[in-house]
């Protein structure tokens, strides 16, 4: 049992390092674009209004908190509480996706098209890549819901793995929010 825990933690660490490297590369690219541009956003492009991304941040943060609650409940073997908290986590995750879609429509309607240059490329491209990971995360939450149906000694470990990934997505979004939208 001990070894199983160690294996899962190690494997999850490697997975998260890999995923983090992907985003680190993106941010490195962003740093290059940002530092080589005279003004950012480029002349003629307006900064994206903060309220939708801010909403997304709220959603994903609360979602992360609920995900943490799921794990606590599973640790206490309170599966029914875990199920409802997991439900909330998922709904908030979906709300995040909704807010993101809103953000894309909003950017489009305010004249920032995907093809209109490097600023738009970064805004759309990075949020898309993150969103794809969130979709994967949502599938993981669905998988966890399925796992919770049948008692097994591995439920807690699986919950922890999914929880880590979900927190990771939250952290990446917060970095993106600060780096891309606020700063």
């Amino acid at each position, binding site marked *: 049992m001990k070894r199983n825990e*160690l*294996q899962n933690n190690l494997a999850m660490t490697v997975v998260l390092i890999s995923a983090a490297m992907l985003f*680190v*590369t*993106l941010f*490195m*690219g962003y740093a290059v674009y940002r530092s080589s541009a005279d003004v950012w956003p480029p002349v003629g492009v307006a900064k994206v209004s903060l309220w939708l991304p801010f909403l997304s941040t709220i959603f994903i943060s609360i979602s992360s908190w609920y995900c943490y609650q799921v794990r606590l409940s599973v640790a206490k073997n309170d599966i029914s509480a875990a199920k409802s908290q997991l439900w909330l986590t998922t709904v908030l995750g979906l709300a995040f996706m909704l807010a993101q879609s809103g953000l894309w429509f909003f950017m489009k309607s305010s004249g920032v098209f995907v093809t209109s*240059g490097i600023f738009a490329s970064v805004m759309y491209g990075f949020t898309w890549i993150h969103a794809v990971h969130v979709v994967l995360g949502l599938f993981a939450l669905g998988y966890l819901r399925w796992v919770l149906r049948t008692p097994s000694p591995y439920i807690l470990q699986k919950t922890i793995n999914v929880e880590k990934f979900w927190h990771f997505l939250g952290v990446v979004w917060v970095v993106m929010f600060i780096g891309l939208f606020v700063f």
Partner: protein
Amino acid sequence: MSGGYNEIHPEPTTFWSKYIISFDHKVIAKQFLWYGIAFLGIGGLMALLIRWTLAYPGEAFPVIGHLLFPNSAGIVPPDSYAMLFTMHGTIMIFYAITPILIGAFGNYCIPLMIGARDMAFPMLNMLSFWFAFLSGLVLLASLFLPLGAAAGGWTSYPTLSTMIGSPGAGQTLWCVAIFLFGVSSTMGAVNYVTTVITLRAPGMGYFDMPLTVWGLWLTAILNAIFVPVLGAGVILLTLDRVMGTTFFLAGASATSGSGDPVLFQHVFWIFGHPEVYILILPAWGIVSDLLSFFSRKPAFGAKATALSMTAVSVLSTIVYGHHMFTTQMSPLLTQSFMTLTMTISIPSAIFFANWLGTIWKGSIRFDSPMLFSLGVVFVFGLGGLTGLHLGTVTTDLYLHDTYFVVGHFHYTMAASVLLGGYAGIYFWFPKMFGRMMNETMAKIHFWGTMIPLNGIFFGMLMVGYGGMHRRIYNPFVYDSLKRLMPINEMITISAILMGLFQIIFVINFLWSLYKGKKAVNNPWNVGTLEWTIPSPPVHHNYDVIPVVKCGPHEFGNPNLKNGRDFQYQTEELVQGPA
């Protein structure tokens, strides 16, 4: 993820679960081996087409030329030529070397050599192969597109690889294939890292692991960290191609261009330089072990070798800029990258010294795995030393993008890895398939590979220094290159010879599979754990998990009294009279 707990899993019974979606690391290793050898054949054939075009431009490729290029009377046309060298590079690196060295040997050797019953995550392991398979299919499919496969070189520099330079779906499929391959590699890496850390047999410290496992483990770590960097690069490139973003677009042809094509080069080589070591580290590990096994004495400075390999892995992450000297980075970056690159020679010199130290005063058996290992020392020596010319900025300004570079990286990445891979195949074949390979054919294969191989790659160094630049279709376009044609012809003839000698390997491999002499448990008299069990091993490898009591290279201990000159790792180290 569910964990592996080193318990005995029941043996699968159906064909499907036994051979196709098998969770057994030994079967997955064989799947990777077949996959790799198949792609090695395809990539090799592409190499011959390339070489033929360079030596005899405008002449039909013999025998199969008319079949492959019916529209141009058997002559390789220029656009196909670009696809050929792009696919040759991509296939050899990602679809031949990686599956054989990392997929096959990694899967086969790691659990067996550390005394485990399987990988930590058998299902992930299975998925890793099938992602690689899917990736290979996507890549091969791109060859049949109307506009053909990717043709921007395996490096796929934008803006050539964006819609400006490469219309058609080939380049997009290339990106997809590479991304899938990256997913597969990362899955493998998760498994290897975890397995080595958690499933070592009781008593086995890190320095009791065979150096093969060290090499594979370091490779897995580098893979996990740097493959996603390329992943990010190809995602952005795909977005540029499909969605119309402008991450890598700039210049007059890019209507809304404000991106940075050089950024891709940075991203590519941040991945690309470690990738070189990802490919070579398993070969180094195998060679370090085999030199000791066949010299019948302990590996000289095994700890130092392991630490040097680690040092090289670390250094490999901070030297990538030497691939980009001609893009005119800031002078400070250029100088730093040159200096950092040079420091790699210190650990390299140390493990070279250790390799020679290992065969020094040994009692050397020249079986085929040993011949190939000695071959690796020779060709990697040449490859490593020619790196000095390219790591130095001023000489690189002349040699960059010439055939000197091609010769250099083929020596390091292709020749040494190929020979290392063959050494591994000849060595572990008895364990994998329970039969011996034919030794005479193996020796013919060695000399038939080794001699033309040097003809090819040394020839490339020569024409490169002579000023022939890379990736050109017809050297006759340049007056200054005409004088190099005899060397080009020599290279091509060597390449054809080498290709022909590989047929001997294929025959030997297939013949031995069914008709080879039955292998005993330990045909090479080696003490590492995989030789303590039957050949081929049973489904769960070890009936009882072994307990390790000594290192992997216990040979020639004068205190041994049992008629053997080696000790199994499961035996207490024999001490002399105090």
